[in-house]
């Protein structure tokens, strides 16, 4: 029974990993191409969740599922165009300060507009319920989250590997000067990458709004984990981030099972261990411009 239960915890951990995945992927993309450590990434996730709560009464959860990520992506476009763009080649401390400031402005704005207490929001009736597989129990809604996350990962991978757009982005990560020398401006690509990245964060916000308290600090809550995932996975590595997200989820599950007070700390311990053994992360690539 204990082993079966441990397996259940591990499978559940994979589901939790899917939460972090959508946020970590965007974080990794923006850093790889723009060299910006986006501390405001959690804010886009929070805005996605708040938009869902605000929009769902009029256009339904399905409508918000589409509208919130699109609106947040447009917000991302504006922020990229007027703010982030100025800092791609600047001292990284400046973009850190900028995005840290943006995160605080966003959190406080949410607090002023919607109030500090959590906003009520529930899983839509049609998506409620549990799935029993043998002795295991799964929330039907969480399986849906896993499905959507898997589709996003697949879509993003195809976009980066199989399209002209993806080839330019990947080249831009490794050697932006050469891309420039070939007569390709990376600017529109960077705008698109930021839109995709923050849109994914917002999508995570939409999907988690029904199961996690919608409150102003929710962005800061999830961001640390997303960073840990990126660091463990290795910067610039697509599959590294995916694998790391799943490992983090599983480690968390095992810690909750074995020693609850360390549920969150276990993830940081894992990061420490990975950094000691593989300073570049599990699948980290050497990116010349960051060395």
């Amino acid at each position, binding site marked *: 029974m204990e082993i079966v*239960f441990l397996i*259940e*915890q591990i499978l*559940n*951990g994979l*589901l*939790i990993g899917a*939460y972090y995945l959508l946020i970590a992927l965007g974080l990794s993309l923006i850093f790889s191409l723009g060299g910006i450590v986006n501390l405001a990434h959690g804010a886009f996730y929070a805005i996605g969740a708040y938009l869902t709560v605000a929009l769902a009464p009029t256009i339904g959860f399905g409508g918000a599922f589409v509208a919130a990520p699109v609106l947040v992506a447009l917000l991302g476009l504006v922020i990229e165009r007027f703010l982030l763009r*100025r800092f791609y*080649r*600047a001292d990284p401390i400046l973009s850190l300060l900028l995005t840290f400031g943006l995160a605080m402005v966003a*959190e406080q704005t949410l*607090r002023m507009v919607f*109030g*500090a*207490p*959590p*906003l*009520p*929001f*529930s*899983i839509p009736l049609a998506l*409620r*319920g*549990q799935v029993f597989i043998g002795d295991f*129990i799964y*929330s039907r*809604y*969480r399986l849906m989250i896993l499905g959507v996350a898997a589709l996003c990962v697949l879509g993003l991978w195809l976009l980066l590997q199989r399209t002209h757009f993806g080839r330019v982005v990947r080249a831009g990560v490794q050697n932006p000067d050469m891309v420039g020398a070939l007569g390709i401006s990376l600017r529109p690509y960077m705008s698109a990458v930021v839109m995709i990245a923050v849109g994914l964060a917002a999508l995570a916000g939409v999907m988690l709004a*029904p*199961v*996690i*308290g*919608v*409150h*102003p*600090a*929710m962005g800061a*809550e*999830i961001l640390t984990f997303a960073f840990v995932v990126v660091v463990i996975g290795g910067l610039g590595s697509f599959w590294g981030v995916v694998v790391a997200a799943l490992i983090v989820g599983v480690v*968390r*599950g095992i810690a*909750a*099972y074995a020693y*609850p*007070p360390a*549920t*969150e*700390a276990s993830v940081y311990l894992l990061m420490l261990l990975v950094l000691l053994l593989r300073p570049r992360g599990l699948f980290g690539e050497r990116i010349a411009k960051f060395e």
Partner: protein
Amino acid sequence: MTELPRITRRGALLGAATLLAAPAISYAQSDVIRIGHLTPRTGFLGPLGEFAVQAGQLAMDEINAAGGILGRKLEITFEDSVNPQTASAKAERYIQRDKVSCIVGEINSASALAIGQVVQREKALFINTGANSDALRGSDCRKFMFHIEGQNSMYVKAVGRVLVQQGLIKGKKVYALTADYAFGHDLLRVAKRFMGENGGTVANEDLIPTDLTDFSPFLLKIRQARPDVIIANLAGAQITNFLKQYSEFGLRFPVAGFGFDTALAWGAGQGNFLGTWPTMWHHRLDNPAAKKFTADFRQRFGRPPENQAWGDYNAIKIVAQAMTETKGTDGPRIVEYLESGAKFGVLKARESYFRARDHQIMTEMYAITALPPAEQKDRYDIFTATATVPGPEESLEAIGATPEENSCTFPA
């Protein structure tokens, strides 16, 4: 890239001097009574801090509209206490620099302890409006610290009595989920004592990190353990997340809590709130003063007040009454007055008073039970009052910790 504007050293010096000089001018006014309000406004307790601040504003405006305190205007400054270190530093600054007459607020038990140490040193009054640890009224009690928030023992005894009546304690197996910090540890200790005295056993106990948002691993553990009842000793955003996810997993074990704040249940969403919980006050109480407070608060802030708002609103009113009665703002004299058993109408059927030996308010508490989802009419009226504890014929001390359970010797 454009260059950043340069700040010269001389400019910085001048700026700093101006900033430091400005407050000194306003503090020279003596026709104002100052209170420093200090409570978490960000982080996992931030959702409650907002109610505390709004209630403080409401109380201040009511007092000033009625002519202030002793003919002087009341001025409350509001600050985010963040964590114990910051709380301690800000409390010190309030007293030494801003010359406040007293400090009101706090929710985090660890921060309240830090503020308690500062006020003890500075001999200034502190009214704790939201920290529950018994230790604050016992081993860590302070002559200048009073508690309008109930202590953990009161919460446990108030709701525990109802749970015993519902047959959820005697001979039952309990799964306890406890917030992993000062408040939770203290509450778990009190809860286990109560269980032992009433024939229940805590079969499983998990300490939950305060920043944990996903309860699914614990829900799986609960499902495997098959407890008779789940007791949530959680705090802040944890309660909202737990309620949402418990309902998501469709578990059917009865749920009760020994620590609770209504705002966190309001935030859980339609059909997610369940179980029986204790509270110091709730907006559905049927007495004229409570109804007026609820109506005024609702009109001004667009939502009903909850237990945290009750604490800070009444703390300010109590301070005002104490200053009026002692005809001044002298800390030791106010302490003497509060210890004298003076009665305060705190929006309840019965008047309350502070117990001299540990400075804990003796007051009615309430057990509330979630309404079935179909009967939850709007997002606020989601529970029904099950019991008032102690009952009308009982002493208010019936739910307080006994001297044997929690004894306080004020340090000199």
